[in-house]
């Protein structure tokens, strides 16, 4: 049986589906009977979702124009 501290160390690999089948089984056996580790797993899943929802800032029009100008220069000099 894994300890709670071991579950904490393995949780990201579990969430990402990167544990082998034996470790995944041990992880799930522990979490099934351990409310704090279920809470921790829930927190890590939520964190994954919240971080994944951080808005992506688009490139500013000024930067885009500067890059397009550089591209045009490059393609003319080729």
């Amino acid at each position, binding site marked *: 049986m894994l*300890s*709670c*501290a*071991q579950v*904490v*160390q393995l*949780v*990201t*690999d579990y969430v*990402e589906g*990167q544990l082998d089948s034996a470790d995944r089984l041990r992880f799930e056996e522990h979490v099934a009977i*351990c*409310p*704090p*580790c*279920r*809470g*921790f797993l*829930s*927190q*890590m*899943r*939520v*964190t*994954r*979702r*919240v*971080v*994944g*929802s*951080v*808005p*992506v*800032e*688009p*490139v*500013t029009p000024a*930067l*885009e124009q*500067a*890059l*397009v100008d*550089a*591209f*045009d220069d*490059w*393609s*003319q000099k*080729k």
Partner: protein
Amino acid sequence: MPDHKTDSPRSASTDTQALSPEDVQLVSRLRAGDQAAFIEVIRSFGPTMLRIARLYVRSDEVAEEVVQEAWISVLQGLEGFQGRSAFRTWVLTIVVHSALRRGQREARSAPFSSVGQDSGSASGDDSLELDRFFSGDHPRWPSTWTTVVPRLGELPEEKLLSGEAMGVVETAISGLPDSQAAVLILHDIEGLPPEEICETLELADGNRRILLHRARNRVRAALEHYFDDRLALDA
């Protein structure tokens, strides 16, 4: 420091075996001077490039300069690009190196391997909050929790994804070591596959996994703290 003007010294042709058909077409359009293709690419990759650059330099303005420098390197190297890695990976690798060079000049940043950075080694992990566990030799509860761990997944969506929660996440990410932040951004925000992250940041997969775990755990701790306070206020 690798030379990115060509990803292989042998020839300037693109190895279509290694590239996706989309990349082959994209590189071909760019080489032909197709401005619309270039605009598509800068809109697609630009936000990621800026985020990565911003990790290593002091200001948004300098990050924009780094992105411009990186694109100039990309264009100069385009004829020599052989497609040994995906086009996006190649571009991101160039921006990482441009940003590192600029950051070193600014003396704000240093390579992942230098002192003070988290290179993802197994030792020195401070992400496990040891005060939340009984010791390993505790007679009754070895290495088990001493505290309650609230299940944030039961919070309503509008609270989890509120602007304030996003601010907590952004602040937590900005406080991470560069290497952890880079892995977290590329994995969780930009959705790059693990092998592209390893190639872009020149990390072994084991180190990538450790850095991702540490980064996500630190952000988790910030969210737990934030929601603990919110729940106490709401009670």
